[in-house]
C-alpha cells in the first residue's frame, strides 16, 4: 500500500511489476494513468503546473487509499501523483489496484481516480497562448465523486 507525491516522472511498467511481484493470489490489476491534455475548455494548453500542500496531500491520499482498502478486498494498491510543471502528454497521476477478483480491482480503481481527479488537494495553473490562469473547480467532477458517497464538508472529512 503506497502513496507517493513526487515531482519526478514514473515508470508504469515497473510500478505494475512491483505491485504484484511475489503475490500469485492476485488475479487482476486495474489501473488508470492520467495524462496532461493539450486542450482545456476549447483552448490549447502549453503547460499545467500542479501546486499542492505538502504533508496534507499525502495525508489525504493515504486516507482515501485506506478507505478503498476498507471497501474492497485489495491485495495491493498504489497511488502516484506528480506536482510541478507538466506539458501535454506528460503523466500526472497513476492509480493501480490489485485483487483476487477483477470487480474489486476495477471498482476500487475507479473510486480512487474519481476522488483524485476531483478532491485531491492540488491546484492547477494552466498556461495558454493568452496567458496563465488558475483552473476553477468543476461541477461535473463533483458529481462523479459524489456517486461514491464520500463524506462531504465534515471537519475530518476528505473534502472541504
Amino acid at each position, binding site marked *: 500500500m503506497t502513496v507517493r507525491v513526487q515531482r519526478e516522472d514514473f515508470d508504469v511498467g515497473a510500478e505494475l511489476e512491483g505491485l504484484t511481484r511475489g503475490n500469485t493470489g492476485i488475479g487482476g490489476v486495474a489501473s488508470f494513468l492520467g495524462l496532461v491534455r493539450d486542450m482545456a475548455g476549447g483552448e490549447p494548453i502549453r503547460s499545467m503546473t500542479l501546486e499542492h500542500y505538502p504533508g496534507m496531500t499525502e495525508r489525504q491520499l493515504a486516507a482515501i487509499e485506506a478507505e478503498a482498502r476498507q471497501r474492497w478486498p485489495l491485495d495491493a494498491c498504489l497511488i502516484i*501523483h506528480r506536482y510541478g510543471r507538466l506539458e501535454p502528454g506528460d503523466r500526472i497521476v497513476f492509480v493501480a489496484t490489485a485483487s483476487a477478483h477483477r470487480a474489486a480491482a476495477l471498482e476500487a480503481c475507479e473510486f480512487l481516480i474519481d476522488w483524485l481527479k476531483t478532491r*485531491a488537494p*492540488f*491546484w492547477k495553473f494552466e498556461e495558454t497562448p493568452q496567458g496563465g490562469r488558475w483552473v476553477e*473547480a468543476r461541477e461535473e467532477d463533483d458529481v462523479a465523486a459524489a456517486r461514491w458517497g464520500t463524506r462531504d464538508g465534515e471537519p475530518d*472529512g476528505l473534502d*472541504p
Partner: protein
Amino acid sequence: METANAVQKPIKLLYFAWLRSRIGLAEEEVVLPAEVRDVASLIAWMKGRGPAYAKALENEAVVKVAVNQEFARADHPLRPGDEIALFPPVTGG
C-alpha cells in the same frame, strides 16, 4: 496564565494557488490578537490587514481552510502553534 502566554506564540499561515498569488506570500507567521479564537474570526481579522488580504478574501465562500492539515469549518477553534492553510477549492489531479 497559560492561555495568555500561549497567545504570544505565533501561528503559521500557508496560502495556496490564487490565494498565494493575490496575497503575495506563500507563508507567514503571525501572533493572533486575543479576539481571534476560531476560523471565522481569523478570516475577519485578516481582511483588515491590508488591501491584498481584503481582495484575496473578498469571496469567503471559495476560501477553504485547513487547521493542522485537516479541513476546518468556520467554528473550528485556533490555538497558538497551529498550522493554518487557506486555499481555493481543490481542482484535483
